[in-house]
């Protein structure tokens, strides 16, 4: 738990809080990007280069852009008159607490799964690639299939709308 860790955590938490609390939707999306960047830097701080850069490439380069695109193309960036906050905050709170509890349980349980890890493991990109292509090739293929299905689905949705308009 170094000094850098605290700075990075502060950035991530501040970004996430701003994403929830700001009123303008595009500002929220940009604040979310800050939180993503903070997480990527945390990965880098843990010497996980691949995870960190993939986080930047995927989340800042693609997901954040898609989020702002979706906001602009659907509702416009103007703040609605009746406020942006939910009218049923307790339901949201319960769901958030539930998700947090599950994640916390999984993370706390992980120390039992790997009881004898004392030294910090060094994992290079080459190791990750080899593992993906040998031991984890089936999950990789399943993810690829899922993504292809999603892609085809998106194309079909777009094509259908075009026909309907005509």
């Amino acid at each position, binding site marked *: 738990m170094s000094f850098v860790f605290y700075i990075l955590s502060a950035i991530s938490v501040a970004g996430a809080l701003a994403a929830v609390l700001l009123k303008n939707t*595009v*500002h929220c999306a*940009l604040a979310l*990007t800050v939180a993503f960047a903070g997480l990527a830097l945390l990965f880098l701080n843990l010497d996980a*280069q*691949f995870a960190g*850069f*993939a986080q*930047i*490439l995927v989340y*800042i*380069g*693609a997901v*954040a*852009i898609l989020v*702002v*695109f979706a906001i*602009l193309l659907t509702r416009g*960036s103007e703040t609605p008159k009746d406020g942006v906050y939910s009218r049923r905050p307790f339901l949201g709170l319960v769901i958030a607490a539930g998700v947090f509890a599950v994640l916390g349980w999984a993370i706390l349980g992980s120390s039992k799964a790997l009881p004898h890890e004392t030294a910090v493991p060094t994992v*290079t*990109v*080459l190791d990750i690639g080899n593992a993906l292509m040998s031991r984890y090739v089936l999950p990789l293929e399943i993810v690829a299939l899922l993504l292809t299905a999603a892609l085809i689905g998106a194309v079909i949705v777009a094509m259908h709308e075009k026909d309907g308009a005509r």
Partner: protein
Amino acid sequence: MIEQADQIFVHLLHWLLGFLPVGIQGYVGVLLCVATIIVTFPALFAIAVLMERKGLGRMQNRLGPNRVGPFGLFQPVADGLKSLTKEDIVPLSADAVVHFLAPVFLVVVVFMGYAVLPMGRNMTLVSMDSGLLFYFAMGASTELSVFMAGWSSRNKYSLLGAMRAVAQMISYEVPLLMSSLAVVMMTGSLNLNKIVEAQNQYTYGLPHWYIFTPWGFAGFVLYAIAGTAETNRSPFDLPEGESELVAGYFTEYSGFKFALFFLGEYVGMLSISGLGSTLFLGGWSAPFAFLTWVPSWIWFFGKVMLSMCVFIWVRGTLPRLRQDQLMNFAWKFVLPLTLLNLMVAATWRFMPEGWLRWVVCSAILVGVYTLMARVGMRREHFGPRSYRYAE
């Protein structure tokens, strides 16, 4: 002596650091390298802008800048001073914070990419295990700055320009990554130093650059197309098409903020050229074995400036694409060809060395290219030209 000239900057750094106490040498060394990058590439930017204005002038049968200094050589200095002294106007309805952050973010992210580029033998700032991934992560972040600039200006031209730019950059980022991936498959490393080392070998005095293989040549052409689109250069300069959108996403920027966008664009071009040279043109290695005595950094910067000349040449030659043409080209032509190129690279990798793999790989690439071009052209109907608006 030859060794000295090759390593002159490395020796200079060590000599300078020799004056300092050991404890802070590492930090000062990094600072010095960063400062050098931040000084060198804007200097090259000034030269490139002058080259562009002179070159475009030549192509358009005019003189180009010729008032400041001999042959207009000091024009970039005058431009820089002008942009520094101009008033910085922020529109009343603009989102002030985001409007301010956009150019800053762009320049920071663009300069970060240089951290992993090998600019000469032993001249890489950070030799990272996943350097290429880092480079692309930084390149992907520029889209966000473009969006921030366009959205925060609260101007329909800016917003349209930003939407176009982001759509275009997302579309062409996929082929850019995929075409570079062929090189990674062949080298087996994401480290740019290793990629250059793999190409720095000679047979009969000729280099082992990846561009001199079928998959490498196809990959380089696709990379050049995607890189041109990624940097919003003509013929893919729709996001800032002057005739349609004033200046696209930076319409509402003036003074030094505009200069920062300008700088970001050109430094991005230099960096894309640098990566292209590193991946396909052998980085800092010499084009012939008997030329290896020329310092490595001269080759790197020479290749980068040569690519800039090609950028300028293309800008002076080709007309701008239309939005639908741009998207169709990216998704229906460039992307399938990059995927095919990955297959061809794999074939090349696993076939025994010899003339057969040259024939097979070239045949696949040329055949599919011809087929796709034929099928694509069949849908087009080229009648006599009609001018709807300019009669």
